[in-house]
């Protein structure tokens, strides 16, 4: 008799709800979820997007000190690599040593415009002073194999209203509402991974280096064990700085990358007015413009070697200007500043056609100049 009363009593369920609130707080507001893990610096390409999404969530939600100026960087590998905090911090210390700035690079490898739009839904929690949205034209190009929103959008989706792309069904909408209302549900994939990691820690992966002295160091880190071979191909290009030699170097360093960008050129669907990419961009810029922070849209540097690709094997001639115009038009609609950095960097600053060399490119110099200009004015 007593057992039945206990099981069904309203007080039992009321207390269970209280305990659930406590369990949620213990898991999602403490080092149990946000302390360093052994998986977060993984270089395993099947896990790296999850790990970086977790790190972005930690930057936003883990309790931390908040200096008066907080700069958040949004984007993908284009900005993740050359704008690591260590590189920016060294440059900041050089040009503005008295500036007390917190830098949060929230970029995630492979993040497309739809992923960044979802990530931006969390920005109010971070309360940045300045948001720099790093975009490249191809971030707006979709392919069946590379949609405009991927794992980061699925892991981070919150919001009471549907975003620019309607959910696939009622289940997805309810899931999003549950993530919005309940932190344990919102972070359940991260919490599961973190708890598993506390119980069964793996061999910790090395963090991304805070300094690179040579290109060979960089190739060695990024292509473990093949640094010397790739350095040889890279030097051959530097001695004969033609498009053909650069492609030869890429074939040695990353044949998969060449296939990927050729796929983009062949199958990519370019943004058109009202297309999903433009709707996502519009939602993203609209939200950023409504925040209490200043926003800069940064059109990321492009490898000038692409101008020699007249046959359009590795890029779509003219698309860079079209995409820049689309982005500028959307930014103008919301009164957001656009900085066109597409011609900022020489070819030797790039690892490939899209990515700047971390540290060695020197991209941190003009980027920090823009940050100081923005937060100092």
């Amino acid at each position, binding site marked *: 008799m007593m057992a039945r009363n206990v099981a069904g009593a309203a007080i039992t369920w009321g*207390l*269970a709800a*209280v*305990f659930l609130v406590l*369990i949620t707080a213990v898991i999602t507001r403490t080092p149990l979820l946000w302390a360093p893990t052994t998986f977060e610096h993984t270089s395993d*390409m099947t896990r790296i997007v999850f790990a970086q999404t977790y790190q972005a969530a930690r930057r936003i939600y883990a309790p931390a000190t908040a200096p008066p100026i907080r700069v958040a960087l949004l984007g993908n590998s284009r900005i993740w690599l050359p704008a690591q905090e260590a590189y920016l911090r060294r440059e900041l210390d050089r040009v503005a040593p008295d500036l007390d700035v917190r830098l949060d690079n929230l970029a995630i490898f492979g993040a497309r415009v739809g992923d960044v739009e979802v990530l931006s839904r969390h920005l109010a929690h971070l309360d940045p002073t300045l948001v720099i949205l790093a975009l490249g034209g191809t971030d707006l190009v979709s392919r069946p194999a590379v949609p405009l929103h991927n794992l980061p959008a699925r892991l981070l989706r919150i919001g009471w209203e549907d975003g620019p792309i309607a959910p696939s069904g009622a289940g997805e909408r309810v899931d999003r509402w549950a993530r919005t209302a309940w932190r344990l549900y919102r972070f359940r994939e991260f919490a599961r991974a973190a*708890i598993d990691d506390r119980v069964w820690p793996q061999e910790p992966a090395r963090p991304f280096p805070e300094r690179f002295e040579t290109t060979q160091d960089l190739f060695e880190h990024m292509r473990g064990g093949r640094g010397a071979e790739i350095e040889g191909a890279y030097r051959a290009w530097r001695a004969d700085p033609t498009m053909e030699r650069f492609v030869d170097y890429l074939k040695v360093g990353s044949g998969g*990358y060449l296939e990927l960008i050729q796929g983009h050129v062949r199958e990519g669907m370019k943004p058109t007015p009202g297309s999903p990419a433009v709707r996502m961009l519009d939602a993203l810029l609209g939200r950023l413009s409504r925040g209490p922070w200043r926003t800069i849209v940064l059109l990321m540097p492009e490898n000038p070697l692409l101008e020699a690709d007249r046959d359009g094997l590795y890029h779509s001639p003219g698309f860079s200007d079209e995409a820049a115009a689309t982005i500028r038009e959307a930014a103008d609609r919301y009164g957001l500043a656009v900085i066109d950095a597409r011609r900022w960097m020489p070819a030797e600053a790039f690892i490939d056609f899209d990515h700047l060399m971390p540290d060695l490119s020197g991209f941190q110099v003009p980027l920090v100049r823009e940050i100081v200009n923005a937060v100092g004015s």
Partner: protein
Amino acid sequence: MRSDHDLLWLCAVIARALAYAAAIAALVLYAPSEQHVFIYQGF
């Protein structure tokens, strides 16, 4: 005797509530959800 029963009942309520909460949390955390594997091909 009455107060002993009340105390026992309260302990049972707390234990049951804690078990419910823990079970729901475990279900949320460990029920199958998002596929974490996403092969990054950017380089």
